[in-house]
């Protein structure tokens, strides 16, 4: 099993979530994060002076899925959240040792 951690633009979050739900993967963990890669930041104004803000708001999606489904989900996320502009985000794939469902005590792939 793999955990897909996707950092995407906040404006794209609803689109990505709807697409994933349509595909059949409704479960996810969502966090609001700040950060930047090579994106230079945006320009803001305070008390009449322009200045640069380099910590930008993003959304982090975390989904745990079976190995066979990773490619389909990653491609969906990429195609739904891509704009072509710097700051679209990144996707990281992690290995998951085990998964437990708390309500039914299922273990492994059945719990995903």
């Amino acid at each position, binding site marked *: 099993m793999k955990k897909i951690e996707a950092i995407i633009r906040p404006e794209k979050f609803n689109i990505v979530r709807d697409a994933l739900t349509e595909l059949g993967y409704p479960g996810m963990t969502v966090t609001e994060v700040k950060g930047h890669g090579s994106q230079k930041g945006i320009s*803001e104004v305070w008390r009449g002076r322009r200045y640069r803000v380099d910590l930008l708001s993003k959304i982090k999606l975390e989904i745990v899925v079976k190995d066979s489904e990773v490619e389909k989900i990653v491609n969906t996320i990429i195609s739904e959240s891509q*704009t072509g502009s710097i700051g679209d985000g990144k996707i990281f794939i992690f290995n998951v040792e085990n998964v437990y469902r708390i309500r039914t005590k299922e273990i492994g792939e059945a719990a995903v």
Partner: protein
Amino acid sequence: MKRVFNKKTISVWLLLITVGLLFNLGTVAAADPSGASTYSDSIGGLKYAVNFSWTLLGAFLVFSMQAGFAFLGGFLRQKNMLSYMAHCFIDSTFGAMVFYFFGFALMFGGSKLAPGLDSGTPFVGNDGYMLLGNSYDVQTIMFWLFQMVFATKTVSIIAGAVAERLKFGAYLTYSFLVCGLVYPIYGHWVWGGGWLSTLPFGAGVKDFAGCACVHTVGGILALCGAIVLGPRKGKFNPDGSPNPIPGHNLVYVVIGTFILAFGWFGFNAGSTLAATDLRIAVVASNTFIAAAAGATIMLFLTWAMTGYIDVPYICNGALAGLVAITAPCAYVAPWAAVVIGVLAALAMRGTIWLVEVKMKVDDPLGAVAVHATNGIWGMLAVGFFADGTYGGVSGLITGSGWQLLAQFIGTIVAMAWSFAWGFAIFSIMRYHMNLRVSDLVEYEGLDIHIHGTPCYPVESGIVSLGGVPIEEVRKADEEQTSLLERAMSKDATREKIYSDKLGRWVYALVKPSKATPKK
């Protein structure tokens, strides 16, 4: 613009202004600018003093309503809060300037309500520009302050319906025109001694504190603006069903309602312009009773209809009652205020359904429902419930239907006037300058793009240190921004399908493209 504002031009202008000022020697033309000839140590003089204090305090209270309007921005999303607050704040300042320069003169010239307001026709006034000459008089100026805070309320109503998607330049333009032309001219007809106030039916059109002049005019203009501007992205689905777009802070909404209700005492009770007119007690009580009745009926209605006690609706119900009682507050008995408040809230609820579901118009704050409908209802209520105990205004309950006819005419004229001007202003602006902000700006929020800073810069503890933007980065910035613009526009026009799984409309899936490793 840089060419106009260099050092040499500025110094030339300063020199001209100074010379001009220096030549203005001698005494100043005025009626009674210090109050010395109006006031005297007598009953008559004290009467002036008491009425001045009452009216001025009423004006200050109405000004404080601006903070209440600003707080209602809790209905909007966090990313657009600052732009709405900017609208409310600039309304009270920019609108005041416009009203000072010529709005007041167009509205009250010829009304003879105070010194220096002598020339005008039944259709438009023409005296009192910039409060100079004979209108530089303490009475006229007190009157100006009171009327100006009313004018700024009219413009603020429109801000609620066009929030979250209007360009700032368009906002300044419509503020200028509404405060300078639309509001004053209709106001002249009703309050400035114009043709509506002298209709031969009943006592003429009676609008005590501004149902028609402020709320109907403002509400209908808001409706026109919302129609021409179009709905927010994501508000309506392809089949026309509306989506709820929740606000970001309901504490602000409740506080805003409190501040508005508090200021409404000045709005209504101050409109007697005199504390020696003891009817102010009835006016103030009617005001509050209608607010309470409107809120209470919404409490029970939402409880019955949805099982939840819906706080925003209760607040809007109170505001609906306040709007509706604005015209009849001086003319009706308290029991009538209860009826008016209850029916006002119900009318508001009905209008929200009508505007959002039937007409498919997006009104973020419910401005049209609260102000337009209840402005109309309040005017008609005068014709129904006025009991003749004040001002010779008798309505249907005393057996006379003429007042109702006059009120009806006044309302129809207000609606026609506002619709005509509203569509004209907004349509012409849409043609020339494209009213809406770009899709990128609408998605990311007006605050950052138009005002340069988010409204709540730090939600969590993470603070970003800033530096001065480097010139070389600017070109790269522009490229990236245009890429983003194109992507956002594509999103805005994407096909949507109805998803049974989610029970709502979603974007149709695009063909997923394969991710390729870089060689």
